[in-house]
């Protein structure tokens, strides 16, 4: 009975997690009810929203850099061909419509006719071609595979763009939103050094809802409404201010005191202060964002102990995932059994080999592998490396150490500053175990393939650092990305997960939900999987009411 209950709890979420989720969902749904309609009620015009961010962006040119902090600001100034909703589904932005050829190789986009740059010049297909060929296609870290797959871009007329891919690439639409595929002005950048163009730092010219007014380094960035924005009546806010607050606890305090009214994005959200932020009255807390997998990864190529599958298997059984989610993440996260997170529901395979929390089995497996306990009770020692100061790691690794100690594995925690971690773990493979979050985004080809394909063993940050290599997995990843048939793609991803979870280069623990907060006096926030995008939809409840027809309602 007890076992059945335990298994039951393990297979899903614990009661506490369910209650918490229900509480949060109810809160969110309560808000949603008030926001009925695609634009969340009747919007009002006016007001300023102050958001907290962690640091200055390095540039305002999203064509040459796609880090989250740059995207947070630039997605307000520039636009992409499409935008993604909270399910990562594409919707029209600069492109009003598009068609995809049956073989998945030709994408034809029709641009909106009334779009103008901030300096009054019209947007044309030449801008799109220029941006993809000279900026994002050359420098985008997140979309490099997608853009590298473009064979040609044609512009038959000023409003039409035809993109031909070398091979079909199923996640292509996902890299066309403003974060990965911002469209930059050809007339500003052509013939200049795009890396040092002064417009990268001041007077940027975009097509987005806001324009840069002021950037006081280290203090704040103020954006004001673009009166000539292509969506009528939008944006609803007069201005957006990004206040730079490097310390996580201070960001939470500033939210409590009302000095900032929103915190969004995985880099800015102070995870450790979640409990405190939940208690701030008149606040909407919404769990949304790019899916990510948090788990334990093995260096089984260099470490002979970890090279034995029984040892990795034993460790998988030694870990109590539920306890980690409850106490390490304070319930904010979803237990997963696979390397593809549940946040990509169409690709997630819940029927992979599972490793329940079973210390007795773990002990037996370790004995069987030839690592019997010594007099001290310890079988062997391993280093567990992780990024210092990362709220997704600090508490969970302490729990993990205790759990592994119980089966006789002595864990030495190796807290590494980010730059050192990138060098040591990802470049030099100088680690035994690594714990941390890895963003997978809305398609496994974008964030999961880089961790498990042989071609991704490159010694570069956030690529295949366990050096897992299985030709069958490579073949299936390739098939999944090249096919235009959804069922074939799903089947391939399901099989990939089964194989990887059998080989066990990693133990995925949780799909970490990304919380975002905003004061209730603002509505319409966090409507995209990239939560800092789409701020043209946010409106202030104390602003001037707008009548139907005074604004563009489409989402």
């Amino acid at each position, binding site marked *: 009975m007890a076992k059945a209950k335990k298994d039951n709890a393990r297979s899903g979420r614990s009661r506490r997690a369910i209650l918490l989720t229900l509480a949060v969902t109810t809160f969110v749904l309560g808000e949603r009810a008030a926001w009925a309609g695609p634009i969340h009620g009747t919007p009002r015009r006016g007001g300023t929203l102050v958001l907290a961010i962690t640091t200055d962006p390095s540039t305002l040119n999203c064509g040459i850099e796609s880090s989250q902090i740059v995207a947070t600001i630039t997605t307000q100034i520039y636009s992409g061909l499409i935008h993604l909703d909270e399910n990562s589904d594409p919707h029209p932005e600069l492109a009003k419509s598009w068609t995809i050829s049956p073989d998945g190789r030709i994408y034809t986009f029709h641009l909106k006719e009334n779009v103008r740059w901030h300096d009054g010049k019209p947007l044309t297909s030449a801008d799109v071609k220029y941006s993809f060929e000279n900026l994002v296609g050359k420098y985008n870290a997140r979309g490099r595979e997608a853009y590298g797959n473009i064979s040609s871009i044609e512009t038959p007329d000023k409003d039409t763009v035809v993109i031909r891919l070398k091979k079909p690439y199923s996640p292509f639409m996902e890299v066309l939103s403003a974060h990965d595929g911002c469209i930059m002005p050809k007339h500003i950048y052509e013939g200049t050094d795009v890396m040092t163009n002064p417009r990268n730092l001041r007077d940027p010219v975009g097509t987005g809802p806001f324009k840069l007014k002021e950037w006081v380094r280290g203090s704040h960035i103020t954006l004001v409404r673009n009166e000539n924005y292509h969506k009528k009546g939008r944006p609803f806010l007069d201005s957006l201010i990004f206040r730079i607050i490097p310390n996580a606890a201070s960001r939470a305090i500033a939210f409590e005191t009302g*000095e900032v009214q929103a915190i969004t994005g995985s880099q800015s959200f102070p995870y450790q202060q979640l409990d405190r932020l939940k208690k701030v009255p008149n606040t909407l807390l919404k769990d949304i964002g790019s899916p990510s997998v948090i788990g334990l990864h093995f260096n089984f190529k260099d470490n002979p102990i970890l090279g034995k599958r029984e040892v990795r298997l034993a460790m998988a059984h030694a870990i109590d995932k539920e306890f980690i989610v409850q106490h390490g993440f304070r319930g904010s996260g979803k237990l997963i059994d696979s390397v593809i997170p549940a946040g990509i529901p169409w690709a997630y395979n819940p029927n992979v080999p599972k490793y329940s929390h079973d210390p007795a089995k773990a002990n037996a497996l370790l004995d069987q592998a030839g690592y019997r306990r010594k007099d001290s009770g310890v079988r062997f020692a391993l280093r567990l490396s992780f990024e210092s100061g990362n709220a997704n790691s600090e508490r969970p690794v302490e729990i993990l150490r205790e759990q592994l100690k119980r089966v006789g594995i002595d864990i030495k925690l190796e807290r590494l500053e980010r730059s050192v971690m990138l060098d040591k773990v990802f470049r030099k493979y100088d680690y035994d175990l690594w714990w941390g979050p890895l963003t997978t985004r809305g398609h496994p080809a974008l964030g999961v393939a880089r961790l498990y394909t042989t071609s991704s063993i490159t010694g570069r940050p956030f690529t295949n650092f366990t050096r897992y290599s299985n030709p069958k997995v490579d073949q299936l990843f390739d098939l999944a990305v090249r096919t235009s048939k959804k069922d074939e793609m799903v089947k391939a991803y399901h099989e990939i997960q089964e194989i990887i979870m059998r080989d066990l280069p990693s133990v995925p623990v949780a799909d970490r939900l990304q919380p975002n907060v905003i004061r209730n006096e603002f509505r319409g926030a966090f409507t995209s999987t990239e939560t800092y995008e789409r701020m043209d939809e946010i409106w202030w409840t104390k602003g001037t009411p707008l009548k139907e027809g005074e604004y563009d309602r489409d989402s």
Partner: protein
Amino acid sequence: MTTYALRRLLHAGPLLLCVVVLNFTLVHLAPGDPIESLVGEFPAPDAYVQEMQRKFGLDQPLHIQLWLYIKSVLQGDLGFSFYYRQPVLTVILERVPATLQLMVPALLFSSLFGVALGVLAARKPYSAADNAISAFAMLGYCLPVFWLGQMLMLVFSIQLGWLPSQGVQSLGTQLQGLAALRDRLAHLVLPVLALSIRHLAINVRIMRSSVLEVSYEDYITLARSKGLDEKKVVSRHMLPNALLPVVTIIGLDVGFLFTGSVLVETVFGWPGVGRLMYESILKRDYPVLMGTFLITTVLVVVTNLVVDLVYLWLDPRVTYGRKK
């Protein structure tokens, strides 16, 4: 005195050169790659890495990079920031006003109150007032600045709601004239307090010991036995002599406050040089890091010179570089 000051400044040349070489070596010894730090959680594309390395001279051997750096520093050019993509001097100078806004009141507050409280405590040793001041000084010295900053915010910003917790001014408001000044002053209170307490505590303790030490000197006994008014004994005989060690400490404070306010600036979101230095370490922005180190070194050298000159003025017995 002028010759002495000039000679000291000339001596600073080789020292600064050593500092430049040492900074360069230390900073480049640290693991980590500035280009990767720029990109975020996805590997930087080759085109980007190569272009950035070429642009910032990172593709050159280290000794060539050092030589180029020394050459440019000698010409007054501190290099180009990898992260901010601006000349280092521009990046640093942008932050200096905020640092001075914080540093000057903190220095004044900790020096004036430190000296006053130190004297007050020493006037009646082991009295209730002395015990209270000494206990406060001990506590102020021990409290971690980071923790103190957070506590001040919790009490004055969240619980009482009296003072803002972040930055140099309120954002999203259109304050003008006096209201704007009041707003800026309100933003200054908590960071200045957090930054000053430790320095204040040190000054109190040094001043107290110094006054106590001086008060047993023969010339004080003589002054008193001459029937001099006690106030005059303190102001004319005791203070100038007791102040000497405090002047040294205050001189050191200048260097500490310029970049040592890293924690305070981080907690309070203050856009100063200390935070710039901290963020540059995380971002591996070598040129900015070396630039802040160099400017701080210059500041410390100049401050030391000023301290020595003040010494000369305060105590005519002190001589530098001359045989008696």
